Structures are given as structure tokens and as C-alpha cells.
């Protein structure tokens, strides 16, 4: 699909007219096509998208069409800009910080599926969205520079200010929001002191995950906020165990990634079929080594132990409603302390 489009590009360049007529050519009949909005790294060559598409098309004899936005937040905004009149049958890639607003938007229909197969920690009972993977936020450290990693959030916050961390901004980044909620969950109303300590521990606050992780891998900082599954990438792809996840006794905050059927998609039988496929072993076994997150259901075989570093006994998570209600207020408090 992608390659076809970029070829169409030459035409674009040559004449606008061709472009215009191409745009108005009626698209393929909706029958047999499933349109999935998702985030970009899902459909990248190395992401789960290509394998998922192939596997599902083999069993549904239909055409899966991915449309991508930058990230989960951009996905929801795309829906809002479209006012519910978009092409999506399924939106895949929101997380639990967004589901309350997404449900409220009225763009989604109930999935009507059994929730038994999902094994996400803390259980799952959302009638609109179904999880497809999850992860725990964690402090990842460079073992060549840090010999004694912190074993708790308290330990980490009180740590050596010379060994700093790169974190992300909760105003622009999902992991950034995750760290903020993690600290809020542990310290509650008394989180100001914790934030002050975090401020002292922080080298810089980046707009997205990529910048912070880039600073980490190019050696500028010995610690970064990422996921417990990040070391698995370095172990399985780069064959190094230099980067490790620090397990915290207070527990780790979770991110659960979900998919839902749009109101338009409710009329497309393929949509429900896809969500069932999504929690099947075929889809779930693709997830770990393409999306570098944990599966939410049986994958049919043992998960590589690389994925189980620092997996906590206690999973922390605010309800979507709590996040939706308080996010703005908490971000303002975070901003106030971190700006000192």
C-alpha cells in the first residue's frame, strides 16, 4: 500500500490535475475492506503492522488498510477533526489515559466481545475498548555507568544528582505523562517534594520518547524513562545486556494500549472479527518482538525471558476517569514545581 502511494507521487509532481482526478476516483467498495487507524510505529516496516496485515488477510479474505497518525494522542485528535465522519472502522493504539475522553466523544461503539481471554494485570472490564498489549514504565540505566541501580522510587529520587536522567514532558509525551502519574500514584497529595527531587535528578525534559532515548543511547545520560521491555530490544536485536531496567518496590505504572470499533465500523462485520483476531495467539505472538511491549493474552509459546526484567509484583494504574478528570490540574502542578 505504502509503496504504491509513493509511486503515485511522481504523478502528483507532474500534474496537479492527475492528482485531483485520482483523489476523486471513487475508492474501492467498502465491502471486504477494513480500515484501521493506528500510530506510525505500528505500521513501520519493522513494526507489527505488516505481519498483522498478512496474517489477518489470510484468514478473512479481505483487504486491511492502515492509516497512520503520529501517536495515540494524534489518533484521537484525527477522530475529533473528522468529527466522526472518517474512514476508520477500527482505531488501534489509544491507551488508558485517553479512553475516557474517547468514549465520551461518542465516536466509538461497544465491542460486545468476551473479555475472558485478556490477561492484563488488574483485570479488564471496558465495554468499548479491548487491550492489545501493555507495558510498565521503568527507569532504564546504563550498567557501564551505574553499578548500583535504585531499587525503589524513593531510592531513585534521593539518588546521586551527578547521575542524571532524561525524562519526557507530560504535556507532549505519553511516557512523560506516565512518569507523572506514577509519582502521583505513589505519593498522592504529598507529591510536591517528590517532584522537587525529580527536578534535581533530571538533566532535561524532552518533548518525546525518541529524544530522551537518543540522549541515553548516545551516552549523554546514564538513565532514561522508558519501559521494562526496552532492554529486551538491546538483548535480542543488538545482543548486548548493557542497558537494564531498574525494578522499584513501590510497583510500576502501566500503559495499556487498546483498540476500539468506531460507530462506522460497527456496521462492518470485519471489525469485530479483527478484534477477536487481535487477542488470538497469532496476533499476540507478533507483538513482543515488533512492538516491544507485553502481550495481553496467550501467545501460544513461552515469552522470551528478556521481556521479564523488572516486571513488578504490583501494577499501578489510575482509572481512565480519574486521569481524564485530573490530568490538567496535575500537569499544572507538575509544571509549577519542575519550572523552579
Amino acid at each position: 500500500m505504502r509503496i504504491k502511494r509513493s509511486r503515485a507521487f511522481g504523478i502528483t509532481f507532474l500534474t496537479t490535475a492527475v492528482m485531483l482526478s485520482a483523489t476523486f476516483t471513487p475508492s474501492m467498495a467498502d465491502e471486504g475492506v477494513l480500515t484501521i487507524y493506528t500510530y506510525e510505529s505500528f505500521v513501520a516496516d519493522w513494526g507489527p503492522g505488516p505481519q498483522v496485515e498478512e496474517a489477518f488477510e489470510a484468514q478473512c479474505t479481505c483487504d486491511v488498510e492502515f492509516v497512520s497518525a503520529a501517536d495515540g494522542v494524534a489518533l484521537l485528535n484525527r477522530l475529533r477533526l473528522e468529527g466522526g465522519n472518517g474512514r476508520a472502522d477500527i482505531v488501534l493504539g489509544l491507551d488508558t489515559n485517553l479512553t475516557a475522553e474517547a468514549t465520551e466523544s461518542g465516536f466509538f461503539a461497544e465491542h460486545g466481545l468476551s473479555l475472558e481471554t485478556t490477561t492484563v494485570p488488574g483485570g479488564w472490564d471496558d465495554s468499548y475498548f479491548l487491550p492489545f498489549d501493555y507495558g510498565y514504565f521503568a527507569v532504564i540505566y546504563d550498567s557501564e555507568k551505574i553499578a548500583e541501580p535504585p531499587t525503589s522510587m524513593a531510592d531513585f529520587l534521593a539518588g546521586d544528582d551527578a547521575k542524571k536522567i532524561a525524562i519526557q514532558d507530560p504535556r507532549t509525551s505519553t511516557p512523560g505523562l506516565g512518569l507523572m502519574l506514577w509519582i502521583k500514584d505513589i505519593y498522592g497529595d504529598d507529591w510536591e517534594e517528590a517532584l522537587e527531587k525529580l527536578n534535581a535528578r533530571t538533566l532535561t525534559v524532552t518533548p518525546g520518547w525518541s529524544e530522551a532515548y537518543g540522549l541515553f543511547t548516545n551516552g549523554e545520560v546514564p538513565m532514561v524513562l522508558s519501559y521494562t521491555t526496552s532492554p529486551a530490544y538491546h538483548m535480542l536485536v543488538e545482543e548486548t545486556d548493557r542497558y537494564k531496567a531498574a525494578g522499584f518496590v513501590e510497583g510500576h505504572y502501566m500503559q495499556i494500549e487498546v483498540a476500539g470499533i468506531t460507530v462506522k465500523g460497527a456496521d462492518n462485520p470485519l471489525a469485530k472479527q479483527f478484534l477477536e483476531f487481535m487477542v488470538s495467539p497469532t496476533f499476540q505472538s507478533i507483538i513482543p518482538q515488533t512492538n516491544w511491549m507485553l502481550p495481553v493474552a496467550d501467545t501460544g509459546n513461552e515469552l522470551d525471558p528478556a521481556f521479564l526484567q523488572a516486571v513488578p509484583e504490583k501494577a499501578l494504574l489510575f482509572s481512565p476517569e480519574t486521569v481524564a478528570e485530573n490530568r490538567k490540574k496535575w500537569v499544572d502542578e507538575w509544571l509549577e514545581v519542575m519550572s523552579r
Partner: protein
Amino acid sequence: MVGGDEPLTAVTPIAKGLAWSVLAALAILCVTPLVALGSIAASSLNLQEAVAHLTDPVVLRALRFTLIQAGLSTILSIALAIPVLIALRQTQSAGVTRIVRSLFALPLVLPQLVAALAIVAVFGQNGWLSALMDQMELSWPSIYGLAGILLAHVFFNLPLAVRVFDQALQSLPPEYEKNAAQLGMYGLRRFMLIEGVVIKDAIGGVATLIFLLCATSFTIVLVLGGGPRSTTLEVAIYQALAFDFDLGRALFLIVLQIVVAGAVVLAFFRRAHTDLGSSGFSLSAHVDTRAAMAGVRSWRPGAVILLALGVLFVGLPFAAIAIDGVASNPLTVWFRPSVMSAVWTSVVIGLSSALLAVLAATLLSNAGSGRMSSVLPMLALIFPPIVLSAGWFLTIRQYADPFGFAAMLVIVINAAMALPFVLRIIDRAFATHRARHSALEAQLGMGGWARWRLSLLPSLRLPLIVGFAFAFALSLGDFGVVALFGSDGLQTLPYLIYASFGSYRTQDAAALALLLSLLVFLAIALADFAARQDRNDLGARS
């Protein structure tokens, strides 16, 4: 439209009409998204809320910081560019000059993420300089904070200023330099009397450009700013639009940014802008000044050191990119089908928008370099890409599937973003041409197409080529517009770089960043080569 001097041949109504059409198209491009967003936000827009935003300490702090960092960045970039420029002008070696010119075209084109990491690799707390200092048992200061932001902005804009000034100085007639040499004027004194005048004239435009680029800086400000202390309005706009989806607040912040930046631009410009058209500098007469001057000018040690410092400052981060790139098996990455296809997409977008930008700049310059045609295109830089793409998305989807228009929109927006740079480059050449040749054109009754073919294009080929290459390079490095328009099918090289970074694939990203830098270097070097051929042709003819 016309500034201080009236050319002998009046600007034809057609030329004026075309220039106005370009400005109108630009206005439509920028204002439509605001209207579209406004119509959605209409229900939540009220005066009370606007007042509340205006007294919001977060907004005020962001506004103040935006102005301070952009102002300081501009002053520093220009103040440091001038010594480097003087040193560059003293260089005898054409090879050195060419390499410096190509190198100095690179920074502005780098995706911000790549630039930030490259700067950190050299100047960061575990960077090369820090390691060097450690060996000498000295401590290296932390760059995170205002210092880091200024460092990065000077890295982006010092080379830009040098290039634009250098381009302006190309219009100096050789007689000036000969006379100066005969009068025994060297160094600073000569510079003040000759180059200084040209630079003083060009400074307003360059300063405005740099100010706007820095005022709307986003990734650099967050990464090197060290934390939310360093928040610009652009960050607040992004937050309001993308994360909070608070269209009313987003609109308010955009309008605030436009008003404040616009006021600064106008103030800047009123002071600095004077039309130089009447001074009659001739580009075509500047055949081979350097050869003529050989033996007169000496290659001073001070200049060598200055130029070396400038080249190191700009070059070291690229050395970091090159070292990382070479170490990550670039050849296996470059020839992947997805990469080849992204290069092709980038090049097609780049060529299309460069063509459009040069065309628009030509039409504007042809009608005279008035204040409107100089200032308005710059104002387009204030509009955050996310606003343009979200607004146009809303507008187009009322009539058609917006994704079908993504490519076209990216090309048009990239062209609009490159236009002020191209204008800086070709505007003066037009003025010069008009001052020198319009009388002759009028005498010969030359007009319309004949004037373009026989008079204008031959003498403007050089700046047009340089402008085209610059616009191409800018578009090649653009990420903002492509990213935010959502992209299935529109995978450019910067897009792939970001995607690789976003999926742990820092090695791929390093290889791709090297590829992007090489492509841009090549494009600029080619343009330089073509321009040199052009000069040789002229030399042979005269």
C-alpha cells in the same frame, strides 16, 4: 509595492498583478487554517476566556521566554557571523570557500532531533569537548538551559547569516576592492567602508528571519532547555492543540504569537530595510574578483583562526553525525527499498517545492522589493506547522478526502516556508539588475518574454540556482509538515529518521542522518558548481 527608488521602466501591471497573486495565495494558505479552526472552536470562544489566557502566568512566562531567547539568539548569531564572514572573504583558496559554503548550508536543513543529538555529542556533558576538558582537568559547564538553546540556535543561524551576507557581498563591484587596495585599506577599516555597508543593508532581513526561526523553535528549546522553565509559545500551542485539544486556547496562543512576532518583525524591518537597488551593483560585472585581488590581499593568521573556529563550531556536530553514520553500516541501510523510496519521495517533494518557491520569489522580486513583499512571506514562518496542517485538514475534508491532498499540501507549505530564504537570495539581484539594465531595456523597447529571456534570466541565473538549491535543501530536511499531516504513503527521509529513532533503531537513524546530510551537501555543492560554470561563461563572454 516599490520601495525608495523608482526604476526607469515602470513595473508593468502584469508584474504587479502576479506579485499580488503570490501574496494573496500566501495569505490564503496561512489564514484559511485559522478560520477553519475558529469555526470549530467558535462555541468556546469568548472574550472572558481570552482575557483569562492573557493573564495566565504560564502564557506570560512562555511569551517572555520566547522573546528573550529569540532576541539573544538573533543578536549572537549575527554578531558571531560577521567575524566569520570577514575571515571567509579573506580566504584565497576557492576550494576552502566552496567547502565552507556547502557546510554552512547544512545546519538549517537538519531535522531538529538529529541536530540536538549531534550538538549534545560535541558540547554535552559527556560530549567531545567535555572529555577534552577532563583530560586537561578542567570542568565543562552544563549546556542545559538558556545556554544550550543559544548554542543550538547559533549553530543553526550563524551559517545562515554568513551565507546570506556572503550572497549579498557577491554583488560588490570589483572596482571597490581594487580601489580599496590601491588606497591601502585593509582589514577592519576596509571592511567597515565596503562590506560593512552591504551587510548593514542586509542585516534587517537576516535578523528578522533568524528571530522568527528561533521564536518558533520547539524540539531544541525543550531538549536543550533542560526543562519546562524553558517553554516557548510554540510549545504551549502544540500542547493546546495536540494534547489538550483545546482549540480556543490554541487559537488565542497562535494569534498572540502572530501579533507579537509580527510587531517585532515590523519594528526590525522599518529600521533596517532600505532599498539598495539604486546603488547599481552589478552581479555580472563581478567576474573574478578573487583572481583580480590575488596578491593584493594577504591571508592573515587572525582570519585563519577565526574561520577555523567557525568551521569547527559548525563542522564538529556534522563530524559526530558522520562518525555515527559510518559506524552503523550505512550501505546496508541506504539500499533498503523503504529508504530508496523515501529518498525518491523527499527529492520529488524537494524539487517541486523549490520550483514553486523560486517561481514565487521571482514574481515577487520582479515587481520590486517593497516592504509588503519582503515582510509578508516571513510572517508565514510564524504559523506552526501543526496549525497549518490541522486547519487545512479540516478545510479540505469538507470537499474531499484530505489524505489525497497531503502531498500537494506538503509541497505548497514547504515552498511557503522556503520563500523568505529564497527572497533574501534573489531579491537583491533583481534590484541590481533593474538599476543597471532597466534603462537599456527601455531604450531597446525590450519587454515581456523577450526581456526575461534576453536580459533577466541570463543575469539572474546564478542567484536563481542558489535559491533553488537552498529551497530544495530546506524542503529535504523538513519534518514538521509531513509529520503532522499524517502520512500514510508520504514517507520522506526525515520521517524515516524519526520513525527509526522512535523504534529503538538509533543505528538506522544515524545512517539515514548521514545520508540526508550528504544529499544536502551534494545539492548545495552542485548549485555552487553550476553557479561557477555560469560565472566562467560570463567571464568568457565579456
